[in-house]
């Protein structure tokens, strides 16, 4: 039986609060952790089917134009230049394959063929030996050198911002630039494709199986039911594995042509070129406020880029309309059509760069208006969503700011450039954290075996986030079992389709479907026990009704199956759903060299119910570290002449490493959001990055007086602003 829920109304009382097991929310270590640290969790490239061949992707060496000939590759079994090869990766949740046709080159590094050989080394050598001829075309690669598109539905204005700027006591009008970013997942994109008759199995790194299956079937010209995707372990996604990429398509075509399983693993450089990048942004922020800091005007203009014809554009201003209130508001969203690599979702698309820059602007306005940055934020928090007057599903920004200020010791912050310790200026910064929240349709099946063990099956993925564990905890809590009595099976498209991992929606969406499946089983147990479901208590494998308790396995005569089906409903529209928090950073800036070292960070977050204190905290640590990278080190540099990515390995593209990351403290606010389904849990994966970089950049200013508006804040940009 399927238990279905469409979230059309708030659920004031969470059934999970009435369960007895007491395991939900606990810091349970990852169920699959021992497999991972002993090498027994097989990632996509680690399967070794008999007869496996190795494919290497061949990349275009021109920014745009036509492939005239590919040439031969002695030593290779095949050079496959198939018209079904995709030009760029699919966007997350797309249901069709991306544009095919590798003859048309749209960016430097595009995959145009795959070379297959008996060994990886032979395939690599053969691929590098190809003599490819092109007809190259001149194309723009600089987003600021073209007239951008301004889609009408992405622009909005209320009141008269220009007038508000003229009339205000204090204003801010500045431009920021953020560079392209890469997801930099540890596991490179990889696929192994194997045909059996007309049935295809692909093992690959995917975040979302259900839509990836549709994309890949469409790209290959087969039916989705001919295709099975397996992604039980995924070594990080961060957006880069939301949709299919060239590895899967090439492996599937090659395996079909050669009649043997084929593996295609991207090199790190190929991951840089072929995984979506986060678009660089130019952001102009205008703010106007009264003498006492009440915002009267908010303007946020964003310029982003993507390839011609690709619908995704970095939603920079996503949270701007509802984070702070002001009577006069303007949002501008412009898209430059240029031939850099394809842009898509990377680590909290939108707020990661949008809220970060906006929170830097707030810090500048606070300085101009001579108001404490925390106070400026507190006095501009809206009661309802500006513009629509919808209520917020819950709103914890003020509490996050107050709690954070106290925990961080904000009152010790000194005026700008007033704290010098040896060669180091010390400063503190703050930023608000905000991220939109949503649910995605999800299904799960739970089987309660006659021996009292449970199995959870869903095509949900665990990309290193803890899905296995939280889904196990939800099932254990609802069915009254110890966590080790629950087996969680994920990452197989034969299982009921879930939300997948992306957009912070996985835990709440997939988790609710698992809860619903378990709730269905609870009803069946109540029927077996002959009691009203409300009188049923399940705990430690015991079924308790009134004061009678008996073992669950004694009650069961056969296995019980429950299916759960969650659909988002009216609460997506009736309320504004978001997660909130605050970021705090203390930095040291070297007075001579401009090097910045973060000394400590604090993140205070509210995400509804915390499903697992440990994995939730880890998510936030990761997000805050991303924020550190965005503020200080990460930049994908594009060659000014052909747009190709110059910093395309992890020695040149600097993600923060251990020595860069100071002690990070995470504090969760107790919160229960009734509009997001029975779990009362919201997304958390991305909140940690949204605004984190701003706290650091604002701390840099407090330390040494330098405003860096061109990210990242590397030493060159600091010394350019230092006064001595």
């Amino acid at each position, binding site marked *: 039986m399927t238990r279905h829920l469409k979230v059309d109304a708030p659920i004031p009382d969470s059934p999970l609060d009435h369960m007895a097991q007491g395991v939900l929310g606990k810091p349970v270590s990852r169920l699959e952790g021992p497999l991972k640290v002993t090498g027994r969790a097989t990632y996509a490239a680690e399967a070794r089917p008999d007869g496996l061949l190795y494919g290497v992707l061949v990349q275009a060496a021109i920014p745009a134009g036509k492939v005239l000939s590919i040439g031969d590759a002695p030593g290779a079994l095949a050079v496959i230049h198939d018209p079904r090869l995709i030009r760029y990766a699919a966007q997350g949740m797309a249901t069709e394959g991306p544009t095919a046709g590798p003859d048309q080159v749209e960016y*430097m590094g595009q995959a145009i063929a795959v070379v297959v050989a008996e060994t990886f080394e032979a395939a690599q050598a053969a691929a590098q030996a190809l003599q490819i001829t092109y007809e190259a075309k001149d194309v723009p690669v600089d987003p600021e050198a073209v007239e951008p598109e301004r889609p009408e539905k992405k622009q909005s204005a209320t009141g008269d911002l220009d007038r508000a700027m003229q009339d205000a006591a204090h204003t801010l009008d500045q431009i920021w630039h953020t560079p392209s970013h890469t997801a930099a997942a540890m596991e490179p994109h990889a696929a192994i494709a194997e045909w059996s008759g007309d049935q295809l199995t692909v093992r690959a790194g995917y975040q979302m199986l259900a839509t990836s299956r549709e994309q890949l079937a469409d790209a290959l010209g087969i039916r989705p039911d001919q295709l099975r995707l397996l992604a039980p372990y995924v070594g990080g996604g961060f957006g880069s594995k939301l949709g299919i990429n060239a590895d899967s398509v090439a492996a599937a075509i090659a395996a079909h042509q050669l009649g043997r399983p084929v593996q295609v693993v991207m090199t790190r450089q190929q991951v840089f070129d072929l995984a979506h990048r986060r678009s660089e942004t130019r952001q102009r922020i205008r703010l106007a406020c009264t003498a006492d800091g009440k915002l009267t005007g908010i303007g946020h203009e964003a310029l982003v880029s993507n390839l011609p014809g690709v619908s995704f554009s970095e939603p920079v201003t996503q949270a701007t309309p509802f984070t702070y209130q002001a009577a006069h508001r303007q949002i501008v969203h412009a898209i430059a059509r240029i031939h850099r690599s394809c842009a898509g979702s990377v680590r909290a698309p939108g707020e990661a760069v949008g809220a970060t820059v906006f929170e830097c602007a707030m810090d500048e306005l606070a300085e101009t208006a001579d108001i404490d940055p925390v106070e400026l934020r507190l006095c501009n928090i809206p009661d309802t969503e500006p513009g629509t007057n919808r209520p917020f599903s819950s709103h914890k920004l003020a509490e996050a700011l107050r709690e954070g200020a106290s925990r961080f010791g904000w009152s010790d912050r000194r005026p700008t450039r007033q704290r010098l310790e040896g060669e180091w200026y010390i400063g503190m910064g703050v930023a608000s954290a905000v991220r939109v929240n949503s649910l995605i349709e999800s299904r799960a099946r739970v089987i309660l075996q006659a021996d009292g063990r449970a199995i959870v099956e869903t095509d949900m993925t665990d990309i290193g986030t803890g899905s296995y564990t939280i889904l196990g905890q939800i099932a254990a809590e609802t069915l009254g079992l110890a966590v080790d009595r629950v087996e969680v099976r994920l990452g197989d498209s034969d299982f009921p389709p879930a939300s997948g991992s992306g957009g912070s929606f996985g835990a709440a969406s997939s988790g609710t479907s698992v809860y619903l499946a378990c709730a269905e089983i609870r009803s069946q147990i109540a029927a077996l026990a002959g009691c009203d479901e409300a009188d049923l208590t399940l705990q430690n494998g015991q079924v308790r009704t009134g004061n009678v308790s008996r073992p669950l396995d004694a009650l069961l005569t056969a296995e019980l199956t429950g299916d759960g089906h969650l659909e988002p409903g009216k609460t997506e529209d009736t309320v504004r759903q978001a997660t909130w928090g605050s970021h705090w950073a203390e930095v040291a800036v070297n007075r001579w060299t401009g090097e910045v070292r973060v000394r400590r960070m604090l993140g205070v977050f509210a995400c509804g119910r915390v499903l697992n204190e440990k994995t939730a905290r880890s998510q936030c640590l990761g997000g805050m570290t991303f924020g550190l990278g965005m503020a200080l080190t990460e930049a994908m540099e594009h060659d000014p002449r052909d747009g190709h990515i*110059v910093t395309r390995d992890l020695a040149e593209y600097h993600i923060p490493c251990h*020595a860069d990351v100071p002690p990070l403290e995470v504090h969760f606010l107790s919160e229960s959001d009734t509009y997001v389904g029975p779990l009362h849990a919201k997304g958390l994966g991305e909140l940690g990055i949204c605004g984190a970089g701003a706290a650091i950049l604002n701390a840099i200013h407090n330390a040494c007086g330098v405003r860096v508006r061109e990210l990242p804040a590397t030493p060159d940009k600091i010394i350019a602003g230092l006064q001595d």
Partner: protein
Amino acid sequence: MKPFTYHRAQTLTDRPDGATIIAGGTNLLDLMKHEVMTPEALLDITALDLNRLEAQGEGLRIGALVRNSDLAADPVIRRDYPLLSRALLAGASGQLRNMATTGGNLMQRTRCPYFYDRRMPCNKREPGSGCAAIGGINRNHAILGTSPACIATYSGDMAVALRALDAEVEIDGPAPRRVPLSEFHRLPGDTPDVETALRPDEIITAVLLPAPIGGQQLYRKVRDRASYAFALVSVAAIIGMENNRIAHAALAFGGVAAKPWRDAGAEALLIGQPPSDALFEQAADLILKPAKGYGGNDFKIPLLRRTLIATLRDATGMEATA
């Protein structure tokens, strides 16, 4: 990667013609995977008896196979040549230092991204093809000793310290010889593909350090992140003070040229003078007089100045009394 034959040398003379020497392989393997280097034969020398650190005269002889991590941790090095230990520990990562050898480190090639990218012209990789870094992304390129053919840097740290320490490179070959470190790495000129004085039929057997010189020995490396990043600029400084005057000065710079850079004139200017910011400014002026930026790396000129001043303040004791 192109197929290659592999030989494991048992003696120093066991050297097939034309074989490329591999020791730690921390750079060569990358270059081979990218087919930037395509040796037909590899000669693995790690079995040779070149991994000893021993006294030689008043100085030290560091075998070419002594690992970076062992060298950095050696008590004699830490006591008598702390500059070398500091420079080594500022380089790469723990894992890389465990593999990298003294000789191999001297032979490491530039990190210019265009050198690694076979789609791009590069005079170092393919003489005569051009330099894509000029007019490209050249944030971490050279400002001193560049040529229209090449603006790549020598990206290592160890050799910068060795340059300040007046080390020599011991070379075996048809005519065994010693080459001062100052002459080992070459500026690009018209032949950026020729990076060192080592001839194809020669092998580095050791690095020789002169007698310990004492003084304050500092290695200051400025980089984009705290861990594992190449120097934007680095300063190796040995400063001896007498009667509050600079009695001895040796300064070498990394991240700014195709070789560890040294300026005898600037050192002479410092000697005999009491330390002051004005004096350090003058020294910086002298060193940076021939400097030329290429757009992305213009900042290295003020950054080197600032880093030099900070290092000299520290080495002369000014920072502590400020």
